[in-house]
């Protein structure tokens, strides 16, 4: 029996979307589950409409920018050295008047000076200086990507597919600190096209994406017996192989051995990229045969003949349909959407659909929203910082008012800077990880509420919580001293923080 009515609608919007907005609670009240299922069928669901540079283009731009910066820095250093030498020269002369050695040292200084002058006079190798208040190029790229992402969350009708995209982005995280310029494009290219597709395709897109190959060091890995490995006396880097098994597919302690990791790492050698400074195809995926470990490999007891790049694809395809992967993904999905410790029956249903449908993620999403366990009225999950922030912006209609840089700062203040998780296991997904940041959320709520225009707190209370609002929360919001304070209190209410 599917739950109906405004209570279930509000629950659905918080638990599976980015929270209610406007009259969305009443709009889906007749069939909340149907609305979630319909979100899966929406054309373009989970995709970013904005036209943005590809990961390879971004990587090349960042590479050019960094090279120009380096050159600029070098020129400045040279000029400074020359200036220092010039300042030091008269002292030398005074101290060593008449000394033959002095003459030569002065000459040296003079010749260096003329070099420096020539160098400084050269046209600067960097692009024309940017306006004073414009951030540097990598930051600009990041801001455009972040803006597109936040807009998608803020403007989506329900945001269920968008939430799935965020989930998978975190599951297959990289860090913008290491992979400069690629975090946003990676999510658009590797994650989003597959969030309602087959897990095998998602996995293949992720593990072959240059951003992931660089993030988990596979671009440095070489087969010890490969041509490059022999020539350079270098060998394996297991990072990508291990994290693929431990984090992306089977899960930790699920039965694979160190030998499996080593073999899989050998399989993946040669999965690399074209260095971003290459003007044509820099930043694109490349299988570099010279790095690839020759020969058959055994992973999880299965023999994989050396078919070059296809050897890796074959292992990934088998990992994608491994029952351990189904179980691991089912556990994470249920924990993300429903409860830190989800009911085993729900995990079982999700894993079964995953196995039965050969990892069809749309079918898995359908199972998630049609399972009774997903509609428990207990709202135990504390929304993680990014999701909560997006929900605040969305409810208050401030996405056009608050600059995306401020939203990103807010997320960083709350301990979850966008696309910058500290480790490959991504952001934690438990209350314990985030609850201590609640006092910081008050400051963010206060700031954002202070920027909202024409706030009608009681209307927003009905929009954002509807029947979920407790009497205490209604009273607290109604009695606030200002409209802005009322909004801050509303988004800090337990009913808005939890889902």
């Amino acid at each position, binding site marked *: 029996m599917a739950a109906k009515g405004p209570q279930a609608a509000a629950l659905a919007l918080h638990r599976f979307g980015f929270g209610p907005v406007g009259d969305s609670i009443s709009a889906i009240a007749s069939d909340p589950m149907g609305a979630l299922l319909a979100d899966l069928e929406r054309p373009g669901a989970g995709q970013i409409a904005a036209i943005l540079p590809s990961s390879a283009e971004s990587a090349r731009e960042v590479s050019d920018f960094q090279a120009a910066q380096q050159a600029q820095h070098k020129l400045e250093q040279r000029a400074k050295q020359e200036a220092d030498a010039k300042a030091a020269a008269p002292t030398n002369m005074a101290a060593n008047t008449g000394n033959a050695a002095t003459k030569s040292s002065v000459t040296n200084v003079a010749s260096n000076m003329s070099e420096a002058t020539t160098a400084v006079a050269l046209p600067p190798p960097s692009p024309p200086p940017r306006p004073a208040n414009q951030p540097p190029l990598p930051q600009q790229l990041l801001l455009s990507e972040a803006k597109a992402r936040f807009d998608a969350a803020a403007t989506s009708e329900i945001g269920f597919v968008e939430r799935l995209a965020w989930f998978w982005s975190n599951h297959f995280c990289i860090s913008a600190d290491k992979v400069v310029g690629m975090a946003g494009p990676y999510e658009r290219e590797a994650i989003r096209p597959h969030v309602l597709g087959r897990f095998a395709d998602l996995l293949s897109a992720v593990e072959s994406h240059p951003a992931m190959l660089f993030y988990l060091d596979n671009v440095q890995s070489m087969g010890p017996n490969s041509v490059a490995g022999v020539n350079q006396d270098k060998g394996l880097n297991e990072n990508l192989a291990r994290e693929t098994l431990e984090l992306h597919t089977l899960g930790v302690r699920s039965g694979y051995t160190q030998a499996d990791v080593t073999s899989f790492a050998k399989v993946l050698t040669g999965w690399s990229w074209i260095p971003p400074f290459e003007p044509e195809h820099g930043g694109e995926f490349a299988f570099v045969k010279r790095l690839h470990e020759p020969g058959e490999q055994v992973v999880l007891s299965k023999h994989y003949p050396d078919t070059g790049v296809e050897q890796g694809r074959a292992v990934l395809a088998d990992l994608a349909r491994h029952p351990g992967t189904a179980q691991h993904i089912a556990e994470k999905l249920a924990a993300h959407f429903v409860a830190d410790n989800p009911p085993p029956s729900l995990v079982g249903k999700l894993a079964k659909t995953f196995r039965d449908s050969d990892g069809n993620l749309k079918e898995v999403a359908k199972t998630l929203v049609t399972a009774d366990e997903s509609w428990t009225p207990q709202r135990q999950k504390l929304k993680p910082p990014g999701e909560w922030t997006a929900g605040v912006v969305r409810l208050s209609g401030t996405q056009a008012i608050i600059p995306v840089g401020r939203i990103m700062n807010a997320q960083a203040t709350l301990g979850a800077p966008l696309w910058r998780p500290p480790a490959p296991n991504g952001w934690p997904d438990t209350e314990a990880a985030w609850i201590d940041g609640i006092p910081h959320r008050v400051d963010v709520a206060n700031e954002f509420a202070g920027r909202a225009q024409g706030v009608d707190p009681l209307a927003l209370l009905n929009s954002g919580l509807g029947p979920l609002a407790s009497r205490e929360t209604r009273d607290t919001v109604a009695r606030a001293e*200002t409209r802005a304070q009322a909004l801050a209190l509303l988004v800090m209410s337990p009913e808005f923080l939890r889902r």
Partner: protein
Amino acid sequence: MNLHAPSRREVLLASGTLFAWAHLPRVAYAESRDPRFLAIILRGALDGLATVAPVGDPDWVALRGDNALTLNSKVPALKLNDFFALNPAMPNLHKMYQANEAIIVHACATPYRERSHFDGQDLLESGLAKVAPSDSGWLNRALAGLAPGGRVDPRGSRVFAVGPVTPLIARGSAPVLSWSPQQIMPASEDTMARLLDLYRHSDAKLAAVLDDNSKLTAIEHAGDIAKKPGAQAGAQVRAYFSEAAGNAAKFLAQPDGPRVGALALDGWDTHVNEGIASGRLSQLLGSLDDALAAVKANMGPAWKDTVVVLATEFGRTAHINGTDGTDHGTATVALLAGGALKGGRVVADWPGLKAANLYESRDLKPTTDLRAVIKGVLKDHLRADERVLAQNVFPGSDAAKPMAGLVVS
């Protein structure tokens, strides 16, 4: 002639930058004054009796007991006249009063007689006689309704507004020039207290986190009086008030700057532990007093042409409630400051404090219509037309005639 089509809302990003509009030539004035007008909205309902105490009223001390400010209090109230005294947290306002640069209007209220902050603030800023949706405020309409060639310099035909959101009072057909302080107001202790109270009733885990947080802050600052809990937040509020009001004055003082402006200062909703003589309200009033001093200093020579009006949506209960605070009430004070005032006076038709004299047996009874005070200033200071004031600026306010004699003629 269309020299410049101003956007409805010109935004200044930082102080001291760009007055970007085309300069209109300064026309010759028969009048010597180049008036400046600043409205400061005190959101949250200011306790008028705690700000300006009727120390001469025989029922005063009985009414408020230990919370009654008197001339004999530990920190004595600042004497205004034989009947009224100012909260000791406001020495700057007191000096202005003594220099005939301040007027206190007491037992004063808007026409609003309910007790909702949101509606009360809307009415105060919209200038309407009844609660109704409005997309413009009285200050904007007053400026838009001024006759051309009048007293207000045409270069000042914009309303200056402080904050990321233009307050309703400043919105309307006249263009708005807005500026935001560098720092934002931190989430107040009041907001924290309200949340903690909510969590205690609804979510024990969230309550524990907020509670621990305030305890940690207390331990961190133990033994350091300057950093005791609240002191830091208090300093931020003080800095914000002064920056917001002081910079508004800098803009208004510019020869080619706006001539009227508005800003809102929050925090006056003192239901619990009001701290009239020392504590929360005392700190807030001190911050407000500093802000007034900053306005005077930054106005420079224009101070003699300045009127600042400080008004709040309604007052608070005459009695202290069960939690050492006061609840939503009715009449309160309006504070006027500026060199253009005929100051050094308390204007009040005092209703008395006996139970029978209180409004609905609980609040100071309103005897002066705030609109009459503001209309008096707008008429005599900005030379606003009385008919326009009654019809457009404060529609339906015919009965509240402009109060005469507030401004030096």
